[in-house]
């Protein structure tokens, strides 16, 4: 029988800890497929942040360094400078990157570090139980914004893909979503492009995934997918915000 769909070779055959309905698993799969297709698994090192992303080391057949909360881009900087022939990626949630780690991500991007950052934006702190993040939508109720996020007191949700696109060191900054098969296919292309650009030494690449957290959003998995379409995408538009075409720096 002709097998047309199988587990990527870069993933370990094991159940994940992710909640049913969570799209972290899809992001993992896309990255693993990208490593397989580019044949770089054996020279790739992953650096997850703290949160639901941390268990990446249980699922990928690659070397992994566990970074302190928000610091993965700095760890990745040291690692890539030490081993420029390796592929180094960080995998951060929105609490990790957009809150505690803003300094590290902005300066790694601004230096144009030749690393790839995968950024999973589900608008809450997932692992700790659904607290408000800088990405939480206006009006969104969380355990620490029980009356709904209010711009007068909590400010507006932060758009990382657009923010990073303003920096000269950034070669590629894109926002994709994981809520429909079509979007998953587009996300896959973005993952492969980002990794390919790192292989081509183009500079800093970042892929933001809009992702579900149905458990902490207190909705069903299907409703969560709908929330991405109806509520997240209008505020976090999908698209390429920066794409360098050559090794040109200014």
């Amino acid at each position: 029988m002709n097998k047309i769909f199988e587990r990527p070779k870069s993933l370990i055959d094991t159940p994940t800890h992710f909640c049913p309905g969570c799209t972290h698993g899809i992001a993992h799969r896309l990255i693993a497929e990208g490593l397989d297709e580019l044949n770089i698994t054996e020279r790739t090192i992953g650096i997850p942040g703290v949160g639901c992303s941390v268990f990446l080391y249980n699922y990928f057949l690659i070397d992994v360094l566990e970074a302190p909360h928000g610091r993965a881009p700095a760890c990745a900087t040291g690692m890539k400078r030490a081993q420029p022939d390796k592929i180094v990626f960080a995998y951060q949630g929105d609490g990790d990157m957009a809150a505690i780690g803003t300094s590290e991500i902005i300066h790694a991007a601004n230096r144009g570090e030749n690393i790839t950052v995968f950024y999973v934006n589900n608008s809450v702190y997932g692992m700790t139980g659904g607290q408000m993040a800088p990405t939480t939508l206006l009006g969104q109720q969380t355990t620490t914004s029980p009356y709904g996020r209010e711009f007068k007191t909590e400010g507006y949700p932060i758009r990382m893909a657009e923010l990073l696109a303003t920096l000269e060191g950034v070669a590629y900054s894109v926002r994709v979503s994981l809520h429909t098969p079509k979007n998953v296919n587009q996300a896959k292309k973005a993952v492969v492009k980002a990794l390919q650009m790192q292989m081509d030494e183009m500079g800093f690449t970042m892929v933001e995934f809009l992702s579900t957290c149905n458990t902490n959003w207190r909705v069903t998995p299907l409703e969560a997918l709908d929330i991405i379409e109806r509520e997240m995408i209008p505020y976090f538009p999908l698209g390429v915000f920066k794409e360098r075409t050559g090794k040109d720096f200014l």
Partner: protein
Amino acid sequence: MSTVRKLTKGNIALAKGAIEAKCQFYFGYPITPQNDIPEYLALNLPKVGGIFIPAESEIASINMVMGAAASGMRALTSSSGPGISLMQEALSYMAGSDIPCVVVNIMRCGPGLGGIAPTQGDYNQAVHGGGHGDYHNIVLAPASVQEMFDLTIKAFELSDKYRNPAMIISDAMIGQFQEPCRLTPKEPIIVPEKPWALTGASKRKPQLLKSLYLADGEQEAHNLIMKEKYDRMRENETLSEAYQLDDAEIMIIAFGLPSRIAKTAIQNARAEGIMVGLLRPITLFPFPEKAAYEYSSKIKNVLVVEMNTGQMLRDVENYSHRETKISFYGRPGGGVPYPDDIVREIKRALE
């Protein structure tokens, strides 16, 4: 080994020691009084194929060190008080993940922004763990420009040997003054193989450096393995200098800068017929507890001199013979004792 000595500034000797130790990676953020170190390395690391990054913060610096060290490289950062405080998170992670590195603290006064005069206020932070969790740094305390060079090499050796962060604590005076210094290593530098390094899972199983242990009993088992490592350090790695202790009736215990001033005080006191000597801890962790116990059980009168309000004092009290009389003379906040001050305190302790 060359015996030629060149007039060298303390911080520069330290930076040269790092290059001699085959450290190829430096990440740092400016803070006085240690800026000579990054400035020297920014100029000279590229000449030996190394990498220098002026990081955006001390948090980024130490995490870049973690990334390079996890790759199997010798990596260094340096800072002072407030910057070292910012590094504590990552130091804890590196201790927990068995990642070696060398961190230099050219101490400045505190708490807070403090001042930049010579001081020893960060003993507790360095020796008793400034970060969270049950761990220790290896801590070395140079007292001369030569030791700034030699102990930097030693710090890399110990750090790699035990896969644990090593810290050098010094002060603005030792960092900034010049002395003749031999700028070649005492022994050939051998960087050990690091099969644990994260270099890509090619022709071997994937490797992992982490400090998260959630399964029942896993973290406790990990902490007990770390304790065995610290016990091995206590058994094998303590360094101290004994100075004029054979006939002493009172023993000064001091590290770093005050130990030098104490030597002048000892000469002056001996000229007056006071039999006094010095025990100088060179490793602060592991503390030279056997030396402290053995000398104190013989001499039984100890004067601890520090440039703080009494931090190493608690370790001396802990490790000395229980019948030892222990006095303390401390100058915090940038105060530096004169030899006469110490002679006065010796006489007081003998009363």
